[in-house]
């Protein structure tokens, strides 16, 4: 416990040291600020920290007129990182309108389905499917106009669940339900999630800890726990016995913790790994480590009312 606490202090200090003069955080030291890393750093720091407010300021200044956020100042189109910016701003009363506009943009965004010709072919030859997934279930894409994938779908579901009270109930319910079904449809045999498919050309794909953790966070609540969620929790616990990376351990702590699993021993292991995480210099991993090491708050855990 003591190790985890001192590691938390160290992780936060390292994160503060990596903040850019413009208030944002880039993927690495001295790299231009990204919406993703800035949002994760804001979420990792207590709101009272001045650096957190400067991070929110960076986000406020970069929101696009359509409500979405870009990848960075230099890459200005609407991006999947919008979900994380919404999550970073939901806690602040002064930013609620911005978060609502971001969530509204997410609500209208959906992954692209198969074209008519492809659908007709699969109807005629269902056994000729190349990937084992239901293409009619649409989640969220990385890039508007492309297919749905696990990670952006999980981010969008988390953000929309957080913003539940500010959004029209019926389209929200429909999108969240379809997103949930899409994630369950893409689960790997044996539990967990790959980046988006469970099988290609008859060969089974294996799950990743990070995508599995995000999918689990997105699937919080919703009544009875589906078997896919139960299997994923077991698979995630198994995966981090082999995968020692800071990112995998941090996300596993956040996901397992959100489901009530005792994660103290994982926190201790993450604390032991923190030097490598710092040395590797991946700001995203460091921000998630700082979040996971904090046993007093969990920005990705949904209250029961939001999770349903």
């Amino acid at each position, binding site marked *: 416990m003591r190790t985890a606490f001192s590691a938390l202090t160290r992780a936060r200090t390292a994160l503060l040291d990596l903040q850019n003069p413009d208030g944002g955080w*880039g993927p690495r030291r001295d790299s231009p600020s990204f919406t993703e890393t800035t949002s994760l750093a804001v979420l990792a720091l207590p709101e009272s920290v001045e650096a957190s407010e400067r991070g929110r300021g960076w986000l406020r200044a970069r929101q696009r007129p359509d409500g979405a956020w870009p990848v960075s100042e230099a890459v200005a189109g609407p991006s999947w990182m919008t979900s994380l910016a919404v999550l970073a701003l939901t806690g602040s009363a002064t930013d609620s309108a911005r978060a609502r506009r971001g969530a509204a943009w997410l609500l209208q965004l959906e992954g692209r389905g*198969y*074209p008519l010709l492809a659908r007709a*072919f699969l109807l005629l*030859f269902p056994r*000729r499917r190349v990937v084992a997934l239901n*293409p009619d279930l649409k989640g969220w894409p990385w890039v508007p106009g492309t297919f749905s994938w696990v990670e952006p779908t999980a981010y969008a579901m988390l953000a929309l669940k957080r913003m539940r009270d500010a959004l029209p109930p019926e389209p929200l319910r429909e999108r969240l339900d379809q997103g949930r079904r899409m994630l369950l449809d893409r689960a790997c045999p044996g539990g967990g999630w790959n980046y988006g498919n469970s099988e290609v050309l008859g060969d089974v794909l294996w799950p*990743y800890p990070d995508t599995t953790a995000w999918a689990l966070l997105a699937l919080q609540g919703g009544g009875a726990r589906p078997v896919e969620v139960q299997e994923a929790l077991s698979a995630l616990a198994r995966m981090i016995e082999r995968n020692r990376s800071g990112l995998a351990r941090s996300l596993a702590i956040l996901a397992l913790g959100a489901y009530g699993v005792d994660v103290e021993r994982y926190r201790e292991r993450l604390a032991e790994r923190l030097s*490598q995480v710092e040395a590797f210099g991946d700001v995203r991993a460091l921000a998630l480590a700082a979040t996971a090491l904090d046993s007093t708050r969990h920005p990705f855990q949904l209250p029961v009312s939001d999770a349903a």
Partner: protein
Amino acid sequence: MRRREFLGTTARAVAGTALLGATGCRPGKPKWGPSAYRRPARSTVAVLAAEDYGGPLEEIVRRGIGLCGLEPRGLKVVLKPNFVEYDPHGVVNTHPAVLRAAIDAFRGLGASEVVVAEGAGHRRDNEYLLDATGIGGILRETGTRFVDLNVDVTRAVRLPTRFTDLGSLYLPESVLGADLLVSLPKLKTHHWAGVTLSLKNMFGIVPGSIYGWPKNILHWAGIGDSILDINAALRITRFNLVDGIVGMEGNGPIQGDPRHSGVLVFGADPVAVDATSARLMNIDPRQVSYLRQAGEFLGNIDPARIRQAGENPERYAQDYAVLDSFRGLKLPTRATSG
């Protein structure tokens, strides 16, 4: 084409136009103009024997570089291996021993800087990926900097060719600013594109932070078409080194089976290197749509325009297994000429 092959091809085309984009190249007006034309009169490709990963690889790499007439002294070199994913039971990635040999060889030949750069196509956890693949250990041992191209500083580059409708792409400054870009792919079959070699390896320079994991926008735009547009946009000096010591056959690029070929393939012209590498897998490069089109303007696939140095490639040709729907790509015999 038999019914089974036809249905397999159509199924892939379905996935191509939906999940994965069109895999072929569209007919119509020429997709490239004189500004994109880069085909040399003749290209040198060296095939050198390398029985296993424990051999004197640095020496072999130096020899390959020399046979192709490359002089790296004073150049800022970016080595772009292929490590898209990790499978403890597979041979997905460029072997770390080959990467190590390339780092040592280019440094030994006087490169002013050598960095390793990749934007993994599936995994976002580089701390894990570098550790699991053994590449992280090589980087530490050699004191080599790694650049994650998925989150590198980018610049919008107008595509000089029109195989896709993308028009422009954000590409990483670390690659665009290099004096020499070295593609270090694995010798592999590919379940959508037929083969994945030096040219296809350039998908790894497209930043995932902008285009996602996998780089799905390229799939929607068409894999073959995207390969052509990206490679035509890279107006920097190129070199290519294919890890064909153990390649991958069947359901590549991730889930195929290992196949020992015992070679490294070198050359400055990625099209000629890929054509020779395809022939080493007993695949006719003229039947691989993107390679055939690349052979019209980016480089050479015609054996008459390729000067083979080092070993006789025919000695090392192996009949790599391909998916049913790619049987049409195979050369009629194991001969590598043609």
